[in-house]
């Protein structure tokens, strides 16, 4: 049946299949993660979390999704409607597109780009655009304040992320994601680059707007930050994008520092998911333990502490590489 197709068509079809599978899987993963986070948070706070819909509340997030889907979209009076509608679509799109270059396995990757990691970084800095446009579109002062905070914060934390990843790139001598994984077949980079890992991880939490860096949506100050005015499916898109983003940064951390989808006995993809899952859980437990920083503290922590540390780390790595 497939013999009549040209190799290019097969390639395209294969990529499309992967894309559909991964995108659906991510959306389902977001649902599961929402449930998981609520459950983890519940138990940490000595309560049960969702219990009533389905056994142990398993269907709770599905019910929430259906509720959000059936809601009528609301528009604020002075909203810029086009921007208002486009913003949640844009954020979901950017986050999902980044998954194109994530290697779940040695072979399971939609597009093994030569500049895979750079491509992901480029996309993740686009997130801030959608946040600002969401705030601009909804013409709300709280949204506006949240967006200004997120712009300052995300632009700042791009820098330490870049530097910490540069250390990895020096060691692996390639920006191709599969090559980075291969380079770690001996030693994981978390052992060679512990400071780099720490910097990446902290900055990644800041990039995903999670506590202690959840200033853009700080609920006790700005009500809900940039998505104050959103409801229904548009809000659900923001929500899904946030969780997909968490999976994304955890996946990148797995690829860059924990050897990606490699491990004994089990297939690679399973190892990959386990490692990612640990990071996700860690980010969740941060949220339920720490208070929130103030905006000036967040920015000065980035520029006065993380960036110099990342620079030192980078230069040490470079010297190390040249000598040995």
């Amino acid at each position: 049946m497939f013999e009549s197709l040209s190799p290019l068509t097969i390639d395209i079809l294969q990529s499309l299949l992967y894309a559909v599978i991964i995108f659906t899987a991510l959306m389902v993963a977001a649902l599961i993660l929402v449930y998981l986070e609520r459950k983890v948070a519940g138990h940490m706070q000595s309560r049960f979390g969702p219990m009533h819909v389905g056994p142990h509340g398993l269907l709770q997030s599905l019910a929430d999704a259906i509720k959000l889907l059936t809601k009528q979209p609301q528009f604020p009076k002075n909203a810029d409607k086009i921007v208002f509608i486009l913003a949640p679509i844009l954020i979901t799109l950017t986050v999902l597109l980044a998954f194109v270059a994530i290697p779940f396995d040695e072979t399971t990757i939609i597009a093994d780009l030569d500049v895979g990691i750079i491509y992901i970084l480029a996309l993740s800095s686009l997130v801030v655009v959608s946040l600002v446009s969401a705030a601009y579109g909804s013409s709300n002062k709280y949204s506006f304040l949240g967006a200004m905070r997120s712009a300052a914060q995300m632009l700042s934390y791009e820098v330490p992320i870049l530097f910490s990843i540069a250390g990895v790139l020096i060691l692996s001598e390639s920006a191709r994601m599969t090559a980075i994984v291969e380079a770690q077949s001996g030693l994981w980079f978390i052992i060679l680059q512990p400071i780099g890992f720490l910097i990446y991880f902290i900055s990644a939490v800041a990039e995903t707007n999670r506590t202690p860096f959840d200033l853009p949506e700080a609920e006790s100050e700005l009500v809900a930050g940039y998505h104050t005015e959103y409801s229904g499916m548009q809000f659900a898109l923001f929500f899904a994008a946030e969780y997909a983003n968490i999976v994304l940064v955890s996946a990148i951390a797995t690829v860059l520092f924990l050897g990606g989808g490699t491990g004994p006995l089990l297939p690679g993809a399973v190892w990959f998911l386990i490692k990612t899952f640990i990071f996700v859980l860690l980010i969740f437990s941060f949220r339920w333990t720490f208070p929130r920083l103030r905006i000036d503290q967040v920015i000065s922590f980035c520029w006065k502490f993380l960036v110099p540390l990342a620079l030192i780390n980078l230069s040490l790595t470079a010297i190390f590489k040249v000598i040995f």
Partner: protein
Amino acid sequence: MKTYTLNIGPQHPSTHGVLRFVAEINGEEIQNLKCDIGFLHRSIEKILENKEYYQGIPYTDRVDYLAPINSNFPLVLAIEKLANIEVPEKAEYIRVITSELNRIASHLLWFGAFNLDLGSFTPFMYGMREREKILSIFEKLTGARMLYNYLRIGGVAKDLYEKFEDDVLRFLTDLDNKLVQYNKLVTKNIIFKARTQGVGKLSKDLALKYGVTGPSLRASGVNYDIRKKIPYSIYSKLEFDVPTYQKGDAYSRFRVRINEINESMKIIRQCLIQIPKKGDFINKPPVVFKVSPGETYIPTEAPRGELGIYLVSDGTEKPYRVKIRSAGFNTLNCLEELAIGQKIADLIATFGSLDIILPEVDR
């Protein structure tokens, strides 16, 4: 520089009730702040004028619904002073035990709410969990979980139940362990310190000029506790310290309140030892109850500061005038000055650390 106005509240996650700020903001910095209060004004003072003395007590529950027994206290004391009613010793002990338990409950809730303002959700749940245990004890003792209506003219409504002492002691040992955990989770946390140290500095001078009382004043370096300075009930017989800190920032206020929980536990333990096993729990006033004409002011130390009642009686069975002096009113007034030059996040932190609840401010 162009400023803009941000309306915070009355419906806002961290206004502790219904409060409205109108903040003039430059970037994130507050240039000017106005508090709009009165959304919870129920005119309790006027209601009390129209109720007989014993009927007024449940309304004082609602002045500060997080510490109802502490708000019952001054009214009951004022009526007893004017009507010359002796209170049995056992009743005095029960009053002190319950009001200190209530203080712990109130501080625990504040501990949670303050952390919620700073963005961490878990301490809120922990504080609520511990408070729930106190509420269960109160439910067994008084028959209600929040608005007890427990103090009476001349004593208390019901005698202690049989296993009260065991319940309270078990709770106190449990809380001792939990406070160690809270120390690890919150007090020593570097982010918490960064958010509270040096924030909302209330100098001693300013605090005195605004008539701030209670833990917020003691955090600014003034050792003023009405339980020590103008002892009422049996507080003069009890040994306890008054925690005082010098810096006057949000962190000091936090430390003062956490230490106060410890002091209250000390007081309760002493009372449980000293309380007479037998004796009346109420000295019942006559059915047709009249108070001789006169006026008096009774200050008491509620969890939020000086809660005073100015009672004017004209000799009938209803009070002529009751003025409730609430601590929150003065404390909130000083926020307007404290907030200037702060960031929005700090405004929330300062407001949270002052421990203001709005029903007490609006009455």
